[in-house]
């Protein structure tokens, strides 16, 4: 029996250990439901996320990336998310300028108590990415099995 699986996006969510990851755990404790296609990568602080991680994810075929951290003023490490804010405000614009649909890369502040916000955000982002379809623009075809033949001559 072969079932044609519906296409599911791959969504990467960077979460800081102290707020959003905790919020996600709380969503679990409350048995809140959200799509399976989001995967969390835990980092100590959203400021740990190097914007190049996001580029890497897109190249490797990720369909959407989200960076989440504590609300401004609540950073466990005092000021980390202020750096996050600047980095990703600029990176997001740069990506958009380069043709990345803004929905594919987003940032959100979700605290440890905002389980519902976490769930709602995951549901909404997942829906948005699904509507956009697979990331083809920035995926490196290299990694796609079918495109194993040599690159066309330059």
């Amino acid at each position, binding site marked *: 029996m072969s079932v044609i699986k519906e296409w599911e996006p791959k969504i990467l969510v960077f979460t800081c250990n102290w707020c959003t990851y905790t919020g996600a*755990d709380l969503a679990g404790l409350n048995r809140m439901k*959200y799509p399976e296609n989001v995967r969390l990568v835990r*980092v*100590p602080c959203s*400021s*740990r996320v190097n914007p190049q991680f996001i580029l890497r994810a897109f190249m*490797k*075929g*990720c369909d959407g990336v989200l960076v989440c951290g504590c609300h401004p003023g609540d950073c466990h490490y*005092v000021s980390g998310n202020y750096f996050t804010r600047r980095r990703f405000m600029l990176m997001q614009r740069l990506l958009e300028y380069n043709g990345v649909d803004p929905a594919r890369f987003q940032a959100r502040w979700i605290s440890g108590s905002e389980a519902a916000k976490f769930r709602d955000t995951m549901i909404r982002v997942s829906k948005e990415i699904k509507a956009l379809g697979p990331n083809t623009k920035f995926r490196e075809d290299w990694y796609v099995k079918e495109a194993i033949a040599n690159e066309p001559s330059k």
Partner: protein
Amino acid sequence: MSRIGVFVCHCGSNIASGVHIDKVVEAAKLFPNVVYCEDNKYTCSEPGQFKIKAAIVEHRLDRVVVCTCSPRMHESTFRKMLKGTTINPYMLEVANLREQCSWVHTDKDKATDKAISLVRMAAAKVNENTSLFPSKIKVTKRALVIGGGIAGMQTALDIADAGHQVTLVEREPSIGGKMVMLDKTFPTMDCSACISTPKMVECSSHPNITIMTSSEVEKVDGYIGNFQAIIRQKARYVDHSLCKGCSDCMDACPVQARNNFDLGLGKRKAVYTLFPQAVPNKAVIEKKGASPCKFNCPAHLDAHGYMALTGVGRYEEALGVVRRTTPFAGVLGRVCFHPCEENCSRNKIDQPLAIATVKRFLADNARKSGKLGKIAVTAEPKDQKIAIIGSGPAGLNCAYMLALEGYKVTVFEALPKPGGMLKVGIPDYRLDKAVLAEEIKLIEDMGVEIKCNTRIGKDISFKALRGKGYKAFFIAIGAHTDSKLNVPGEDALGVVAGVDFLRESNLGNNPKPGKRVIVVGGGNVAMDAARTALRLGSDVTVLYRRSEAEMPANALEIDHAREEGVKFEFLAAPMEIISENGKLSGVKSIRNRLGEPDAKGRRSPVPIPGSEFILGVDTLIKAIGQKVVQEDLTAAGFTLYDRWGNIAANAETKTELADVFAGGDAQTGPATVIEAIAAGNKAAKAIMNYLEGTELPIEPYLMPEATVEADELKNVPRAARGRMPMIPIQDRRSTFKEAELGFDEKTAVAEALRCVNCAVCSECRACETACQSKAILREQEDELITQDFGAIVVTTGYELIDWAPLYGEYGGGRYPDVITGLQFERLVNASGPTEGHILRPSDQTEPKNVVIIKCVGSRDENKGKAYCSRACCMYGAKHAHQVLDKIPDSRCYVFYMDVRTAGKGYEEFYGRTREDGAMYLRGRVAKIYQEGGKLICKGEDSLLGKAVTVEADMVVLETAMVPSPGVVKLAGILGISTDPDKWLNEAHPKLRPVETNSAGIFLAGTCQGPKDIPDTVAQAGAAAAKVSALFSNDELETNPMISKVIDEKCSGCGLCVGCCPYTAISLQEIEERVGALRVKRLVASVNHALCQGCGACAGACRPGAIDLQGFSNRQLLEEVDALCL
């Protein structure tokens, strides 16, 4: 190749019911480098852990993935478990299959796919893990507590009681802080001092506590467990090891200074203890520097000192202060050009103090009462003989100083009388020569021999004097010859030199000037000559080439000359002296205009062509400058002159001959009496250094100038300068009687009391005399003390907002009876300025109607601060209660925004206050103005919606708390942060309220934000507990999941330094090989004790040269890659 073991947990059915565990296990077995995979019912249980340990051994695993609940739950459990195995605890990753998979998804197949993906990510990450090892840092078990208020005292006591050393640093001279200023504490109405002074005493007597008052933290280096602080012990000018706290010095001190402890409501002395129960109970002297009068005096006479003593009627002591510098009080009081007065701070608000005239009063008063006395020489007599050439003010003062030290001094004077220019230059109507003679006699009485009619070069020579055993010489022959006009006909009969003319007159030789006298020049000699000629019956005109504004003579001298009838021709210069038969007949002059300013800023005269005019004249007196007579010295074998013809000597009065010194006009060219005195004093010290082989300072001890800004004087009552009485004008025109009569006692005292005490301490040194322990250290300097600490607690407290500039509508500080809550505390305090009676500051009457206004500066974003100051509602109620309690028939109105009484017993207290009769009106007071001794408060009762006017006798403003001044600087020193209102930031508002973001630095009390005493004390205890916990170990283990720099990749750009909230990163120089060369360059370096592992630096570093261990770039990129599969 690594060997990864994957352990999948069912968590009972928690995971197993949502995820196909078997599929996960099968998939995981195929992941790169996974050599073993198994599932467990409960991995976290003891059997589960045992199975992992067994698998590690059996399959030679070197890293582990546990697929279970959230790592926030059990990551540390598994790390601990690994401690007992061959694997480093950090070779572990946890895949969160419960909270973030089985519990949140409904489709079991999809959840399984996700679970596989999560495990793959964890396996990919763990493959890049490295073994990490915590490092140890040593802990210095001594705490530094900054701020000696109730928070600081409590913290210090709690830490000390736990057995650790504490240094308690307080900026003020006593610990105690704000709490001891309060009268009662709400809601229990305990006496504040009664509960806080025992804490102070306990601190001072605790063996583990070192109190450093009058001290501030200057610099802090290091990190948790290992801070190094530099503490500035400010000069207190009292040796606290000797001070007994007896208050003799305070009794002796003549200065009335603002009592800051009473918030300006009372006075205290310049030497003081902060309050009677101060700890330590030792006196300190408040010195802001040298008062401008002293600072700007060439001889640095202690003008402030004798003014202060005069003000309290201690004239003899005051005269003694003058005589520390010179015996010429009477002379200087008459003739000094008093730069002290020019620089008096009162110039900024009204008129300067008549310092010179007060000095004259001191001398005249002593003469009149026969108390001029003798000046005692207490020093041991010394054998060395010193010769002084010239008995002017420089020579005589030098003789005086040397005599005071016991030297044998002979003064040689060419003229028949001693005194130099004082005698032969200054006319009698300015200086009664009897005064001069008496003051010279003071010197002679000290054993100084003055030989008149003995001219150097003629009667004596250096050689001969050396032969007679003189060991040192001071040349102070003055400048007694005139400068030439350099115009044709200058040699005519009837052209005389000003100095010669005055000398003749002063020696009683009665010169006879002609009817028409012209004096050329604009200096004091010109004025003296003009006024002398006037008194000799001549018609006198002064010819000056610039305008009056440029005249070098004293303005007062010019005024007096003009009053007496001297005429002036400004902007005119002689061109030619016209003679008839060799006899002077006229002077041809030319008009000038003022040109561009010269190098000194004085506008030079430019002749106007064709403006020549001729004045008829019988006697022309040249007074355009004096020069040194060189002939006599040359004859005596001394030939060292500078290019102006003055004797060449350096700033220390030394000439090129080791035993010859020179000073006064002879060295500087014509100058003033006080400058000559300064030179004489310097020479005396230089000679002593020469004779004794010492290198003591030549100049008197002098602190930097204490300047007072006009703004600081705005509340000083205005008072006119004492008027100088003079003899009738007709006597001034015709006789040589002293024109100025001097002050009487009443005027002198009133004048002295106008002093605003710029430097606070007047340096009268009465305390030195009074102190039997000899504890006064007049020249003490700040001391820097370096000490190591393991922890720091900041307890710098608060200050009240400076409301005056913000609330012009409340009078902006102009109404004395509008006071702050803290001032009210002092008024109502039994040890306060009114001994506990509530009296209006303006007239010391009891107010019947008192208005209390809350939220002044608080909750008022437009004027003050947005925040609530928390304590004011309660102490506002307390003040209302105290007014109603202490003043019979009084009424008290409280204007409020809200009443906040969150605290045990607080609401009840507020209720009682209302029952007492306090009238609470909701609304702000819009305006206060004074009308007939009442303060009219206009406001609104917003509950009734109508305007309210209250006629108050006194208004109490419950003003906002703001952080203690200097806290921003301190935060910078400590590397901790402040919020926009400058309150210090705690590490976490809920969970880490007494910690800062810098490990090892803690907070307590109001430095963190407004709070009341119970909260402050609770925080103090909390901070102490944190410190004690830190000190309970000899070493600290640091978190190894911190940043690490890869030197080869680091370019030292410093981007990471600014990203670190813990100042854990610094740039350090390293040396490395480049080809054959060794090159030094900067790279970032992480302090492992300070780094908290946030990774902000790693997220910023462009080349990835700084990386976060445990969340490294490789690890995260692998995790990302695995996610995308």
